[in-house]
């Protein structure tokens, strides 16, 4: 089975590719470029195309499947109507599958399941990453705010932290928010502090 993965995110594409590599008899092609997409389809002659829902080229791809004579076997939009649950799961995960007409549901289902799991895993990883980045940025802001207070008010580090904390409690804000405001104020005042 020849599977084309169309995704502008190289990282996600490789995560899906990696998942599909375990399936027997699968040859996988990854396309991350918008330009030349149709020419690549002509070359690859895929049995299955996986594309992320956020990809602006989906309409172009559907048009191509509907009218192109370049493909030896016509590609249908979806597996089949009886597999509505599988389609719903893939839409939830953010991936759509186009499959050559006549390919049995039994062969498609495991593949779509893998893609769905990998897409979900990627989304979780993204949100974890965003959270981790946020935490890192918060810690940096707190450190910078402490240094500002130490330099301008001659406080020790524990005293500077205490100052931030009591300000946070007085204004019912988080320490990170108070630190961010202080750092921003200092940037606007152009290092006057």
């Amino acid at each position, binding site marked *: 089975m020849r599977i084309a993965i169309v995704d502008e995110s190289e990282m996600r594409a490789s995560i899906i590719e990696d998942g599909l590599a375990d399936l027997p008899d699968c040859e996988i092609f990854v396309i991350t470029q*918008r*330009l030349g997409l149709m020419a690549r389809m002509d070359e690859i002659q895929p049995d299955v195309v996986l594309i992320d*829902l*956020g*990809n*602006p*080229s*989906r*309409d*172009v791809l*559907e*048009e*191509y499947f*509907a*009218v192109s004579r370049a493909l030896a076997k016509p590609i249908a*939009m*979806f597996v089949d*109507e009886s597999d509505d649950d599988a*389609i*719903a799961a893939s*839409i*939830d995960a953010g991936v*759509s599958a186009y499959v050559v007409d006549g390919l049995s549901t039994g062969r498609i289902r495991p593949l779509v399941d893998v893609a769905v799991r990998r897409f979900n895993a990627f989304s979780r990883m993204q949100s974890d990453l965003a959270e981790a980045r946020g935490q890192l940025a918060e810690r940096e802001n707190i450190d910078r705010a402490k240094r500002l207070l130490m330099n301008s008010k001659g406080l020790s580090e524990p005293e500077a932290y205490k100052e931030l904390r009591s300000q946070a409690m007085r204004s019912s804000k988080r320490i990170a928010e108070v630190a961010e405001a202080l750092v921003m104020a200092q940037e606007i005042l152009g290092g006057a502090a």
Partner: protein
Amino acid sequence: MTETLTIGFLPLVDAALPILAKEHGFAEEVGLNLEFLRDMSWATVLDRLLYGHADAAHLLAPLAIATTLGIGRPARPLSVPFVLGLNGNAITVSNDLAGKLQPEGGLGNAEEVGKRLAKVVEPSGRRLCFGVVHRHSSHNYMLRYWLAACGIRPDRDIDIVTVAPPYAADALESGEVDGICVGEPWNSVSVERGVGRIVLTTAQIWRRGVEKVLAVPTAKLEEKRDAFERLIVAMRRAGEHFVDPANWEANAEILARPEYVGADPALIHHAISDRLRLQQGGELIHYPDFMFQFREAANFPWVSQAGWLYAQMMRWERRGFDREASEKAMAVFRPDIYRAALSGRDSPLPGASSKVEGGIAAPLGVSAQQGRLVLSPDKFFDGKTFDPEKLEAYLSSLDQ
């Protein structure tokens, strides 16, 4: 109690009404909380609508009909209780081609530009290629209608391909396409980048062409009928706000936000005030009713509009007339819901639900169920009319 409706949309200026209904509190006034899902392709807007992520969607009118008829994918019934606006699209061609089609500059005349294009098409070795936003779009049908009426045979003399709106300017620049028929702000983006010139607006092809609609899965419309009727009331208020020049600047700012259209507010301001810059560094010109909204029952889902779209779909899909399918297609537009929602309110309601499209040459007072209604000329550029009662005869009169 406030009810939430989720609406899918593509970042285009004509998604304005539901967005402004939320932002100006018209939705809240009728007890609705609107949430939005912004997507990058019609395929995804449609998938999310069919699989329940969204309750309703800003959708291409012909795509709602194709989905109901099962053209291109398994049939799923959709209903259209509200038209989000008329026209608002333009034809932008490469600078080189513009020099041949409209050498004197300015907005062309549909017939003249078409004649010149036919001359370019005839002898040239390389086939010209035009991009439209979707196979089932009014852009595609208006472009094809114009080309065919000017003696240019789509798919034979000229290629027409699908281009995602955000890439329309890139496609013009790279020479992938020679022209595009797309909504705003994407024509203006191409002009600002100096990669093409606007030569025609679709309002010059059909003065009152139906554009995006609010599409709802038919079962969902029944289930949440009351909420959708209130949404119609809120969107009419938003429409009234949208057409008032005093609000243009503020509305352009709202629509420009990254969570909505995500484009230059100046370009959006031009589109909603019917002004266009046709070429880089050129003057802004005013083309009245470039994007027609609110007035003259513009939001009313005329059954005859659905009939015209169905006829074009059959024409270009090269399928024959089918009475059952044509009735199903026309039943996608739901004037009954629109009437029920606005009955007893200050919006005029026409007496009829269907009319001869392209049949009005001078302002015409029409019978109204409520209020007064005068319709302005709605001509097609070639003077043809479309009578939904004679759909089969109309279809066989068209060149393919």
